[in-house]
């Protein structure tokens, strides 16, 4: 059975990555996983050779078909995240997330 160890901390910059890198040096038959997808840093210490890169998609984003849109403004009205601008453009940042 695989043993799974999780390294966490509430505060940033306390040394999570350093501890994991140390374990990487000590452990045998292991896989190290960087779950800090926002700002992943473990690769800076371990210098891995990338074998597979896969794009990851999650969620959906709105798209306005401008040739059909009658500019009624209903979408602006109901969107609670202000993701659609007055000019009927879907916010770029909303699209990414």
């Amino acid at each position, binding site marked *: 059975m695989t043993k799974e160890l999780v390294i966490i901390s*509430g505060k*940033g*910059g*306390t040394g999570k990555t350093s501890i994991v890198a140390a374990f990487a040096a000590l452990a045998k038959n292991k896989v190290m996983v960087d779950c800090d997808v*926002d*700002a992943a840093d473990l690769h800076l210490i371990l210098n891995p050779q990338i074998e597979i890169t896969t794009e990851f998609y999650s969620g959906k984003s709105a798209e306005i078909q401008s040739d059909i849109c009658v500019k009624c403004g209903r979408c602006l009205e*109901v969107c*609670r*995240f202000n993701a659609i601008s007055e000019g009927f453009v879907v916010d770029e940042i909303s699209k990414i*997330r």
Partner: protein
Amino acid sequence: MKIAVASGKGGTGKSTVSTNLAYLLSKTYKKVCLLDCDVEEPNCHIFLKPVFSFSEPFYVPVPQVNVEKCVQCGKCAEVCQYNALAFVKGKVIVFPELCHGCRSCGLICPSGAISETGREVGVVESGFASGFNFIHGKSRIGEAMSPPLIKAVKKHADKEDFIIQILDCPPGTSCPVIAAVSGADYVFMVTEPTPFGLYDLKLAVDVIRKLGLPFGIVINRAGENDNLIEDYAKSENIKILTKIPDSRAIAECYSKGELVLKHLPEFKKAFEPLVNIIRERM
């Protein structure tokens, strides 16, 4: 005037910069407010020991299904993008913690069976500390959705006409950071001269550029390896605003949870360029 203090990497010194900057500004300006927008792990209050005069729970809207009105069409569960509603055996089950509060379920419901109720996700507190106003949000433990609470903290600050708002932002590059820095007049990007500081700084710069906000870099724990950050800044044409030296005295002060400038006024000059940037833009 809204100044966001951000960084990709955690633990680079955002709160140190935010708290000491607010403290220094409050010597010259009245109506300075510090907002701790790192609602998942707020720390500024440890340095400031504020006295709170306001504390209010914060709620996000979540759906509530009226079983008598429900016509069992299942459209609400179908439209929900976050799987916060499930339609099982003719019944709608709500999972409030997955809800983003978009209200699509209520809009699509043909029988008006879905109303909204509040779910407490944290608390907003405000008060006074070390010569200036202070507001922070504290997220409930285990809470996945911090942006609404961050926005609530900002909204609370906007109720008063503060001359300067300093926003201590969460680390990272995703939704919470964007929620915090949006609408800022200027962003101070705090980093450290290490490969990690540099790598995460680059990611954060990408975000701030996408948002179109003006920004500059603060090198914290500055020392021998500053060229790591300086070379990058030069190549990207980004201004390095100031350097806070890697000093044992500052570290000791920090480790006791004390404001640096209160105890070590000699470091005032490291913060003054930031005050000047704010002054120029006012």
